[in-house]
């Protein structure tokens, strides 16, 4: 007998429940796409299996372009985001610029994709700040040029919009991984052998770090291939991306188009799986080449001279694009008359804020309600699952982590249409409950990613001491562990809330147009192109999670104003 047996208590079933709540909707949604894709949808009178939906999908003239777009934007956005992330870490780690970059990460992470995309769109549009800054003196443009920059058929602006949001995510994941692979030691060894900073990092640290960030990279790839809201704002329109077209079919009055949408969803899933396999194969090839390269002994000291300024430039450019974009959104929301090519509005007006105030406040209420509910549920489940792991004295389960990633690896557009159909059948569509459960599927993984490391890094001697003082497992959890982890819990909650605020597709589909959040309303304005209106909604969409983030960072000092140990 190794130790006295103690009942795990209420937390014992939580890991299984968590997996069920994550995998259940994904599996049900995929089934709900697979069956209609082959014509089986009794609600619409489809009782016989047929290939008709596939035939109609193949007849869509945009199919080839949409498939190409999905693969190109996915691979492009992922490769560029990963390259920028690794360049920044390899070249800048340990510098003051790096400390600045790390501090900017948390607020950047809380920024919804749609708000970042709108900001970028306002910046690079033919009538945006970039064009204004060089007109007319350099370009001769007296009016916005007739250039297809936004929604270019190659998807370049879509890739740019994805990159500015995925780099912060991958950076955060890389930073977390660095601590686990003794990166500093490896670098000391490499540099004492005469290796340059960047070459040394790539040869000694990257292989270990990449193994740790592989799942996040796959999540970025799956997301970039199938994103809907960013594609609606920055992506091409004729034809749109496959994901956008699927959502369009889902919303048509002709219900038979839902069968075509289901076939499209299955195709999207197959595309993502195929591209993930391609990426995985490329990883192996590169790893094999890399081994020979690393063993070749090249010190690459000259690389640093180029890599440092390059990393600084890229990080600065990405940061400036986001900041200027957001500033542009805010300025447009209060702009009166603003002629091209003026850099600044000629007059200001609060008219759009006043006109939208009622709608905005309603949307804030709904957004906050869904966000708080989904975050609270996710926190409870994640805490329960981690506590169950602790009480069972189990090692972190790799299978559990992989299952938590599942909703991030299966494209939203592949399983949410099917899930919506199921909600429709049981009469839950358009209800806050359905939207909250759908949000939970995406909020929970991020809450888990944010909380798991600090939870496991907690000094378990505190539990031993508390037990030896007579405290049972419940008291250790509530009176010792949770209060000590206040900071990590608050940040995890803020990340969860921001994830919920940013959700477009689950809100749109499960909400059936009746649950209106800041994100669904803002994205709905994209096609209209009224910049002042978009400015108002996008600013609110950006502010809500930001306010929560600032509150989360301030929480430990508010709760424990006189305890220094709680602020670290």
């Amino acid at each position, binding site marked *: 007998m190794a130790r006295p047996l103690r009942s795990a208590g209420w937390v014992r079933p939580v890991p299984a429940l968590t997996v069920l709540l994550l995998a259940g909707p994904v599996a049900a949604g995929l089934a709900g796409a697979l069956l209609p894709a082959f014509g089986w949808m009794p609600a619409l009178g489809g009782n016989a299996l047929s290939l008709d939906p596939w035939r109609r999908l193949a007849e869509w003239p945009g199919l080839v372009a949409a498939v190409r777009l999905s693969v190109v934007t996915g691979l492009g956005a992922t490769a560029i985001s990963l390259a920028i992330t690794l360049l920044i870490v390899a070249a800048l780690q340990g510098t003051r610029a790096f400390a600045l970059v790390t501090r900017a990460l948390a607020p950047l992470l809380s920024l919804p994709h749609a708000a970042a995309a709108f900001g970028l769109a306002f910046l690079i549009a033919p009538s945006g700040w970039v064009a204004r800054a060089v007109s007319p003196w350099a370009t001769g443009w007296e009016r916005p040029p007739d250039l297809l920059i936004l929604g270019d058929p190659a998807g370049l602006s879509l890739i740019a919009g994805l990159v500015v949001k995925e780099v912060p995510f991958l950076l955060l994941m890389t930073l977390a991984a660095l601590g686990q692979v003794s990166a500093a030691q490896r670098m000391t060894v490499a540099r004492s052998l005469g290796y340059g900073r960047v070459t040394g990092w790539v040869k000694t640290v990257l292989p270990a770090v990449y193994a740790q960030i592989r799942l996040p990279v796959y999540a970025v790839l799956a997301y970039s291939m199938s994103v809907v809201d960013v594609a609606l704002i920055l992506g091409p329109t004729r034809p749109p991306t496959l994901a956008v077209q699927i959502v369009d079919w889902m919303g048509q009055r002709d219900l038979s188009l839902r069968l075509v949408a289901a076939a499209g969803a299955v195709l999207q899933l197959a595309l993502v799986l195929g591209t993930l396999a391609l990426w995985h194969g490329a990883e192996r090839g590169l790893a094999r080449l890399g081994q020979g390269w690393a063993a070749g002994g090249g010190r690459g000291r000259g690389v640093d001279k180029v890599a440092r300024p390059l990393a600084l430039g890229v990080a600065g450019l990405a940061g400036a694009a986001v900041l200027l974009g957001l500033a542009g959104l805010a300025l447009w929301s209060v702009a009166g008359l603003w002629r091209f090519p003026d850099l600044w509005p000629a007059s200001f007006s609060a008219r759009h804020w006043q006109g939208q105030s009622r709608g905005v406040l309603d949307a804030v209420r709904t957004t906050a309600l869904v966000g708080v509910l989904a975050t609270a549920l996710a926190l409870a489940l994640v805490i329960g699952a981690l506590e169950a792991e602790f009480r069972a004295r189990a090692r972190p389960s790799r299978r559990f982590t992989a299952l938590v990633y599942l909703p991030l690896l299966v494209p939203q557009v592949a399983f949410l249409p099917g899930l919506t159909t199921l909600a429709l059948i049981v009469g839950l569509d358009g209800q806050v409950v359905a939207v909250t459960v759908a949000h939970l599927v995406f909020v929970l993984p991020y809450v888990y990613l944010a909380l798991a490391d600090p939870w496991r890094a907690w000094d378990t001697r505190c539990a*031993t001491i508390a037990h*030896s003082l007579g405290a049972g497992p419940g008291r250790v959890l509530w009176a010792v562990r949770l209060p000590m982890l206040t900071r990590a819990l608050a940040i995890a909650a803020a990340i969860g809330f921001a994830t919920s605020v940013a959700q477009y597709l689950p809100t749109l589909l499960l909400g059936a147009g009746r649950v209106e959040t800041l994100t669904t309303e803002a994205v709905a304005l994209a096609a209209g192109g009224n910049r002042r209106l978009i400015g108002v909604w996008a600013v609110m969409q950006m502010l809500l999670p930001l306010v929560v983030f600032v509150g989360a960072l301030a929480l430990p000092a508010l709760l424990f104003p006189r305890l220094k140990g709680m602020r670290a």
Partner: protein
Amino acid sequence: MTLELDRIAITRAGAPLVALSAHIAPGEVLTLMGPSGCGKSTLLAALIGALPDAFALSGRVRLNGQDITALPTEARRIGILFQDAVLFPHLSVGGNLGFALPRQTPDRAARIEAALADAGLNGMAERDPATLSGGQRARVALMRTLLAEPRALLLDEPFSKLDAARRAQMRSFVFDRARAKGLPVLMVTHDPDDARAAGGAVVDVRGAPVSL
């Protein structure tokens, strides 16, 4: 109160690590010495019921004749002090002591203040533990352990992080109070001075006497 280790044996993957029988009388200190990694701390973990799964334990642990081998940590009433004080950072000094004091204790504030006075820390109940010196933290940790009314005391190299001057003070502070309360003490250390100050028997993890 007596602490009895009845043919305690700890193995790891079948390999024997600790094999020890001992009878520690009230107020007596048994010192366990040996190089790091020999299983000293593992034995303490076993005695409080927090042995990692990689180890297997046989034998019985008795406190005042009661077999406590199968009890969870919180039901054993064995106090433990580590080389770090491990004060809870989210509680004030008084809060840390209050955490240990049994719930139904009357006059909690007075008891806490009395414990602080006993440790030469008068009026420090509201202090942030992060602002205390190493010696002060060690004394708070001891008072916290004693307020939970333990029936035995385990010391895991509790003086090794203190500077030389404080170490002697803290040793007599701990041993005096354990003796006054009649607690059996098991101390793990690799410092011969600790063992000399304790004054009791000194053995290694196999129960063989160690000469200082």
